């Protein structure tokens, strides 16, 4: 299966990855080969088979609604690249 450079760039944008030209070129080729290999799943007719999202049969797991301690602000910001009071500071969004 071949994917085009444009498709790879589109996926990189969706994934928020500023890949270099060299990376795009290499990954485009690798993705094609991997998709070719994993595409084998499409040969099965599975219209009647339900999908599995999770292998353990657990539904509606509840906990008691009791307050418990959480991280302090200083702990929550301990690893932040840039803090501004009670906020994570980031470059302009627009």
């Amino acid at each position: 299966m071949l994917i085009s450079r444009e498709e790879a760039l589109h996926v990189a944008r969706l994934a928020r990855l500023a890949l270099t030209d060299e990376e795009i070129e290499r990954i485009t080729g690798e993705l094609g080969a991997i998709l070719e290999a994993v595409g084998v799943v499409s040969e099965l007719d599975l219209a009647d088979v339900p999908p599995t999202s999770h292998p353990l049969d657990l539904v509606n797991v509840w906990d008691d609604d009791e307050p418990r301690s959480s991280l302090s602000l200083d702990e929550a910001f301990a690893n932040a690249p840039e803090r501004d009071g009670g906020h994570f500071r980031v470059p302009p969004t627009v």
Partner: protein
Amino acid sequence: MPPVVDTLRLTAEDAIGLVERGEVSPAELHAAYLEAIEARDGELHAYLRTTELGDGAGIPIALKDVISTKGVETTAGSKILSGYVPVYDATVAARCKAAGLNLLGKTNTDEFAMGSSTENSAWGPTRNPWDPSRVPGGSGGGSAAAVSAGLAPWALGSDTGGSIKQPSALCGNVGLRPTYGSVSRYGIVAFASSLDQIGPVAKTVRDVALLYSIIAGRDPHDSTTAALPEPVRVPEGDSLTGVRIGVPVELNEAKGIEAGVKREVQGAIALAEELGAEVGECSLPLSVRYGLACYYLIAPAEASSNLARYDGVRYGPRAEGATYREMVERTRDEGFGDEPKRRIMLGTYALSAGYYDAFYGQAQRVRTLIIREHREALERFDLLVCPTSPTVAFPVGERIDDPLEMYAADLLTIPSCLAGLPGLNIPCGLADGLPVGLQLIGPQFGENTLFRVGHALEQAIGFDTVPERLR
């Protein structure tokens, strides 16, 4: 002064005995392992960092670097988490502490646990203690190499598609991937959430069972955990009378299984029969044909979602950018290595509009079939056996440039992971001087059966877990 203990030979159980009887103090034991690390880890690079003695009254433990440790840098083998110091302990780390275990250090891993050789670590590869020109397997090559080289009595790893079982096979020790949902993942750096599990690595099945009993069970912080249906039993007996062992034909005769691996695994199966087990053939036709493909759609899809959190906002290094988007995209390009990028791209593609049903949706349906065929086989048998890895440890560099070749290393470990089943690796012999691993697969929450059978076989096989070159 001679060292207080021979860390190469010491099992965790023996170490616990020494400390309980007051023959060795936790501090002396900790120092003995740090000394062994100092002596041997320059060559192996099993550890990313070691830690000072904690205040536990027990023995040391090493934790894979995907496990959050309060106050101790945790990078998951990635530059994008360099300098990240967790402000809380993962539940498994907290349970180890509560049991008196002292953290010895954080072990190397493929970046975000993505890989089968530990060569994808941003901090350089780990090497196999049996032959340093070869890989220790992955992604938990650090934990497996540490245990085999006497650099830790036991360790924890994480397993998504084989990252505990396969390194244990390649390094010649015992590793358990527990039933999905039996061990908390709170505080674990997530890779693929419907597959990730934490589990023990040690020299003996008894040690693995003991460590499993410390970490397993429901955790209020992780709603995907369940209470164990029965207490963990540390195994004792040597008889396999009444045990029904299934040999899935496809998993034992798959293309790519080396002759030496086949020979040692068949020898172990014959031994099981001598110990009283009933052995019969069964079939898992879809698991080998579609398992790898199914996994390499589901795992990257989930990874692309889990790794979206690394955006340079809340933790980790941040790249410069004039706008928010530019900062995020550059941070991710600079921070992630080749394999996470490859998997993020693959997963994003498989989840994107127009391809979702054909790839991710289809893989989820194949997963249902793989679960069903395992369930049917495990109605007839108490457990299934096959090789853990198709090959013995391969040379460093041999597969790193060919992703598909690397992915094939997990051919035999992946199907039961997709099915959410527990798998235990025990060493069963040598081929070309390198360890061969036997994989025991049980039903959900069937760990006690795996421990019983694994222990009996381990006694009968008598494998020496100390690498020949270190004896």
